[in-house]
């Protein structure tokens, strides 16, 4: 989420509204364990995608690990689920039943419907925007939010450092070959060196922030005021609406099954 990839209607909305709507949507969907509620929600979510200013291509790029997860959940449930219902086909030692198919599909759809709002929220939200909104709307202390933001900036530096440390060990004549214990030891040693380097960097950054008055003791002002507008409220309302419609459909078709 370090950099906002999308620019569109949703990208301009308050970060807290987006993340809040995403969490709300996911939590409410947890209540229903039938396959119809998440299926309807997923369809509605996908319909909202273009209005969010997120292309389906970008969405696919962001969510391919999730799709892999959903397919695995489906396959595992179908192959190893409790054998009940009418047999549909046989795959070697596995008997595939209609109940297992429905359950597998249900799990997969549920996973997608739960995760998609979060992906949308973070694809349209920059880290800076989120920190700004957290400070201004949720009253998260700036010390924490800006500190986390600054630390976040060090991540790519540490990744480059890890590569350098790995090469430096090879240059010193150290490699692990195929021995798993040697590998583990080498990994631990490199990780320790990375940690020492990270602490040094973090300290330097903290000093630089202090020199710029991060702990000045006067009330902080904000360079980027963030407001919570009607449109932001509509984002949250939209999330609630999606859940409501999904549940109405599943109740109406007589398939709704609550968690308890």
């Amino acid at each position, binding site marked *: 989420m*370090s*950099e906002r990839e999308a620019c569109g209607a949703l990208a301009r909305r308050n970060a807290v509204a987006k993340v809040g709507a995403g969490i709300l949507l996911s939590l409410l969907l947890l209540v229903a364990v039938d396959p119809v509620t998440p299926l309807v929600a997923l369809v509605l979510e996908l319909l909202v995608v273009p209005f969010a200013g997120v292309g389906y291509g970008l969405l696919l790029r962001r969510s391919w690990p999730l799709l892999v997860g959903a397919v695995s959940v489906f396959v595992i449930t179908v192959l190893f689920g409790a054998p009940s219902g009418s047999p549909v086909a046989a795959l070697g030692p596995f008997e595939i039943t209609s109940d297992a198919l429905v359950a597998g599909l249900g799990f997969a759809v549920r996973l997608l419907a739960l995760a998609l709002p979060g992906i949308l929220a973070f694809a349209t939200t*920059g*880290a*800076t925007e989120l920190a700004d909104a957290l400070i201004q709307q949720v009253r998260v202390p700036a010390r924490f939010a*800006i500190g986390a*933001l*600054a630390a976040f*900036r*060090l991540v*790519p*530096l540490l990744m480059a*450092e890890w590569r*350098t*440390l790995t*090469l*430096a*060990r*090879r*240059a*010193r*004549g*150290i*490699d692990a*070959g195929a021995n798993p214990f040697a590998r583990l030891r080498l990994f631990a*040693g490199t990780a320790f*060196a990375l940690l*020492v*380097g990270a602490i040094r*960097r973090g300290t*330097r*950054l903290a*000093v*630089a*922030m*202090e*020199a*710029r*008055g*991060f702990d*000045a003791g*006067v*009330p*902080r*002002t*904000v*360079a*980027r*005021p963030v407001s919570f507008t009607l449109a932001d409220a509509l984002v949250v309302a939209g999330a609630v609406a999606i859940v409501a419609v999904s549940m109405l459909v599943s109740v109406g078709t007589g398939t709704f099954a609550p968690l308890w």
Partner: protein
Amino acid sequence: MTARGFGWRYAGRRAWAVRDLDLTIGAGERVLLLGASGAGKSTVLAAFAGLLADDSGERAGTVSVGGRDPREARAEVGMLFQDPQTSLVLERSGDDVAFGLENHGVPTAEIWSRVDSALAEVGFPYPRERPTHALSGGEQQRLALAGALVMRPGLLLLDEPTANLDPLGADLVRTLLKGLTGQTMVLVEHRVAEAVPLVDRVIVISPDGVLADGDPERVFAAHGADLAAQGVWVPGATGGAPRRAMRPRGDTLLRADGVGFRHRGSTVPVPYGIDLEIAEGEVLAVRGPNGAGKSTLALLLGGLLRPTHGDVTATAALAGGDARTPPWRWRAATLAGHIGSVFQSPEHQFVTSRVRDEIALGGVPAETVDDLLTRLRLERLAEANPWTLSGGEARRLSVATALARAPGLLVLDEPTFGQDRRTWWELIELTARLRDDGRGIVVVTHDGDLVDVLADRELHL
């Protein structure tokens, strides 16, 4: 700004970083703070910036800025650090400049006009939305300076602001500093010759107070030789004759044919199409601006990266039977026996907790270890932890570790970076001797003096 009998001892240290320091710097003065490494220069700057926390050490005497405790005068003091990567806080350039204004409670309505004028003052060539990670080192340092100037500080403290930059970036920052008017400026800088034109007063300190103080010409005339002996870079020549190869180059050791490397996620290979040969008994210097792929080339020649384009091949003169496969395929132990690589930051290569163990790593015989400890003046530190060494000592140790397995080829990445004059000459002498022993040496460097004094050939990327 004044210091009266100021002293500071970091918690857990026996020696004072600095003590008995008395100095007064008037408004508008431009001062170069000099001293051998370990003289306490950075500590003095940190004290004036109000960055020495009471719980991190012991204090003696007083420092004040405009008659006040520096911790209360922080809004009037701007500070620029050595490494811009760890001084920038936010993702977008404009937001980063605004950071100090937010912290000091400047009203939102005022913030952006002040950000824009600070960016204009440093000649920042991009819009405020420019991501800070997309800037070069020199541009990042300019942005960091804008972040300091935006507070309109009366006092500007600069801690080696050009040390991490390539010559082009360093020039950019120095030009900018020269053009600044109105601020009192205190500068700590290693390479004095470049810094002198920026100042009108030089103060030389040691851990025991002020050694010399006055206008640059007089200070260097009176104390130049002393300072040079202590390792301070004084203006003028490097102070020694070039070291040329004693005999003609021998057999070729390593060959690069059309070598290039494309980093993951990037579309163009950098460097690309490099052809070179390196032979016994010669020093090849590789130069070029930051981002030209010098360090990557060092890794490719050192057998640490597999080239994505072209081939790096060792000759039998370097590696005997191992030369049948390219260096990047060799096991690490084989590689270290044929090619020694010394990285830019010595700490990256330390893997043990004792200097002696560091050299002995991989079964190096005790006589060789003792010999190297003596040759590189590390005997006294044999039991020390490598992480506690000073910059010069750590550099000497990293060279010693590369030499321990007697490789025929050495690849050095910025070996003289940040070194004082004394260590600089030691490294030059050592490299010249290794060349005369018949080793091939590749030096990747920005250091023009090193190239003038030592290199037999030069490759410009």
